[in-house]
């Protein structure tokens, strides 16, 4: 007796799901551009595929990244994912041993306890029954936590959890029922045939006193099979689509496919790999300050998936990248949003033909590009000029009389065409100057110079450049007892990965104190050029929160490396806010020519500000 009608819902559901996934994966890979396909072909039979399997094991099964966020949340995901896999493997081992052959109908391992009533003489029978019960118990604890999470998400380190749509509700309800129903089905079977382990046998004996088990046994098996079938069939229409998609995403990433700024098949894979776990909701400052509940990446990605994006939602984001850093699946949320901005951008993007008339004939070693924002914080540009002169650098202040914008704000607005016009203009000037290095004071400009301009010369942010000058002893600096906290600008930190140089530089001139949000976890000042919709008052709201956080260690100075952060903080901060360049310029020991004594640093400070 190896068949019963109740296996049909499960079997049909599974086959339909597998066929659907095969087609879906095929279409995705087919739609990748030819470069990406080449990369896949090159890497598929290499160590990279093994690395992908390892990452699938640690991330999709053990959920290591979620463990890092919260242990209970990690345990919940691990018990369900890893436990379920163990249950499937265990079922297969039982089937292979019992029937003594490798090929069996696909439903046997799942409903093993229904078909096998006499395990006498089966190799490792007792051990396997015990193990299977243990795994089931392991999963059931995870399910219990999942029930609990719906009603009390704070336990999981999350203030908010995601809302559900209809497909999700079907899938969630069936997923919640699968394992309790398995327990009931196996327990009733165990009480009838005495084949259970410590969990199912005892539980079966217990319920046999409450209900007529011989009547309920087939009912529970049917229910178990239906819940599995419903879960498989509703999976493609629910957020649980992330389970199979994540496997493909990890593999594609390992094979060298990279996220782009325009929306392609890889971006679509990423989109469907979002589990809407909601881990991105709490780090989002737009959400945590109550400015916009819809901004967090999980909601935005959902709106893209449902084809409900609008330009307001796409533009109402600081593009700070905090969600991207926290995402356990590693979805490039910033690129996702940028891709939508590019899609929704107006065809009318600006005409900068007026820029062509300018002609400069300057030869130099170092180009200094202060950036538009630095022109609003003259302390920074003055400090940089002082430093260049002190270090006797042959420099050219490219945008001394005001500049054409670097193009990054155009990109952040999705206007790639306009960005190209500005880039062409600036690039020509930079190349013609014959410089070997370009130094910029603005992380926004730094990002676009280093990523999009494709310059053949070295691009440095001033913190990197100053750090080099100080370490090569080309610039004398004097240490001071000032207590300083450092605020990582988004574009420089998460955007460009520069965390160490600014910190090293600060330790040369002051005492650096740590804050709660350092490096990848740093907050956004709120001034971001990435958000085109936010109101001025709300910018200050975010800035106030961040300044409060930065002021906690009672610093003398809040140091930052971005003119925009500085400008935003100054409005709301009672603590002095200075750019690193200003701190460095202040700490250059200067000899008073008449008396030969060193000028006091405080006097210098007044000169600068």
């Amino acid at each position: 007796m190896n068949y019963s009608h109740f296996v049909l819902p499960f079997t049909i559901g599974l086959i339909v799901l597998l066929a659907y996934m095969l087609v879906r994966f095929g279409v995705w890979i087919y739609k990748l551009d030819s470069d990406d396909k080449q990369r896949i072909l090159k890497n598929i039979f290499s160590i990279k595929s093994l690395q992908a399997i390892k990452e699938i094991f640690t991330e999709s099964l053990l959920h290591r990244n979620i463990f890092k966020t919260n242990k209970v949340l990690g345990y919940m995901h691990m018990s369900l994912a890893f436990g379920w896999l163990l249950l499937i493997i265990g079922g297969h081992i039982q089937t292979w041993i019992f029937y003594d052959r490798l090929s069996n109908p696909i439903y046997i391992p799942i409903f093993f306890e229904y078909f096998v009533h006499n395990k006498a003489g089966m190799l490792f029978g007792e051990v396997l029954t015990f193990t299977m019960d243990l795994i089931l118990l392991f999963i059931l604890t995870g399910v219990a936590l999942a029930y609990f999470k719906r009603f009390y998400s704070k336990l999981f380190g999350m203030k908010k959890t995601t809302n559900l749509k209809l497909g999700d509700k079907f899938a969630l309800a069936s997923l919640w029922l699968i394992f309790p129903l398995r327990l009931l089905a196996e327990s009733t079977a165990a009480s009838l045939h005495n084949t259970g382990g410590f969990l199912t046998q005892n539980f079966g004996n217990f319920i046999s006193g409450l209900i007529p088990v011989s009547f309920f046994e087939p009912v529970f098996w049917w229910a178990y099979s239906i819940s599995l079938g419903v879960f498989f069939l509703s999976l493609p229409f629910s957020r649980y689509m992330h389970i199979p998609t994540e496997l493909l995403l990890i593999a594609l990433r390992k094979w060298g496919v990279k996220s782009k700024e325009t929306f392609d098949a890889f971006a679509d894979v990423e989109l469907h790999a979002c589990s809407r776990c909601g881990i991105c909701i709490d780090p989002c400052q737009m959400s945590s300050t109550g400015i916009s509940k819809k901004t967090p990446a999980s909601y935005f990605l959902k709106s893209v998936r449902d084809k409900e994006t609008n330009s307001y939602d796409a533009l109402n984001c600081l593009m700070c990248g905090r969600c991207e850093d926290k995402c356990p699946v590693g979805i490039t949320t910033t690129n996702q949003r940028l891709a939508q901005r590019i899609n929704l951008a107006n065809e009318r993007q600006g005409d900068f033909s007026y820029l062509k008339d300018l002609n400069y004939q300057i030869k130099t070693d170092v180009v200094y590009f202060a950036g538009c924002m630095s022109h609003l914080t003259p302390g920074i540009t003055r400090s940089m000029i002082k430093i260049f002169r002190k270090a006797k650098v042959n420099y050219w202040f490219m945008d001394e009389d005001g500049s054409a914008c670097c193009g990054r704000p155009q990109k952040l607005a999705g206007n790639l065409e306009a960005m190209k016009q500005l880039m062409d203009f600036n690039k020509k000037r930079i190349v013609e100057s014959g410089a070997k290095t370009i130094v910029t004071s603005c992380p926004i400009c730094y990002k676009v110079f280093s990523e999009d301009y494709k310059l053949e010369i070295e691009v440095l942010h001033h913190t990197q450049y100053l750090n080099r000058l100080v370490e090569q002893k080309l610039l004398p600096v004097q240490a001071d007892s000032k207590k300083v906290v450092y605020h990582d600008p988004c574009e420089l930190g998460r955007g460009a990965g520069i965390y160490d140089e600014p910190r090293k530089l600060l330790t040369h001139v002051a005492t650096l104190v740590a804050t709660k949000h350092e490096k990848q976890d740093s907050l956004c000042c709120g001034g971001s050029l990435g958000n085109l919709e936010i109101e001025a008052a709300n910018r200050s709201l975010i800035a106030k929160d961040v300044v409060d956080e930065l002021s906690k260690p009672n610093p003398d100075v809040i140091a930052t490396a971005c003119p925009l952060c500085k400008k935003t903080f100054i409005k709301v901060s009672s603590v002095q806010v200075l750019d690193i360049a200003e701190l460095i310029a202040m700490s250059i020991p200067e000899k008073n020519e008449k008396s030969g004594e060193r000028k006091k640093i405080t006097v210098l400070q007044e000169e600068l500000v």
Partner: protein
Amino acid sequence: MSKFGFTINKPRVIDYDLADKRVLNYVLKNEPSFNLCIFCGSCTATCSAGNFTDFNIRKLKMFIRRGLVEEIGTEADKCMLCGKCFLVCPRGVNNRNIVLKVREALTKIESHEL
């Protein structure tokens, strides 16, 4: 007589009955901070594009108010979106987004959506 040297100037009266308020209404709906503008001109003083060419964002905003859609057209294309104008604004007007919304409105007018 025509070479006498005097001509009659076109009247410089602004006829509000002829004002085309489509752009104004679109901007007000999508960027309400436009209402806060006191036309102080700080934005124009700091403008990056204004440094290279005759671009006056304050004037642009006045054209919007007066409903001079033709004059808006070429002006709105000069902005680089650098963002200095919103940083210096004493009233917190999101000037950058106004420019984007003006361009959107102009596209919509061209395609007869507005």
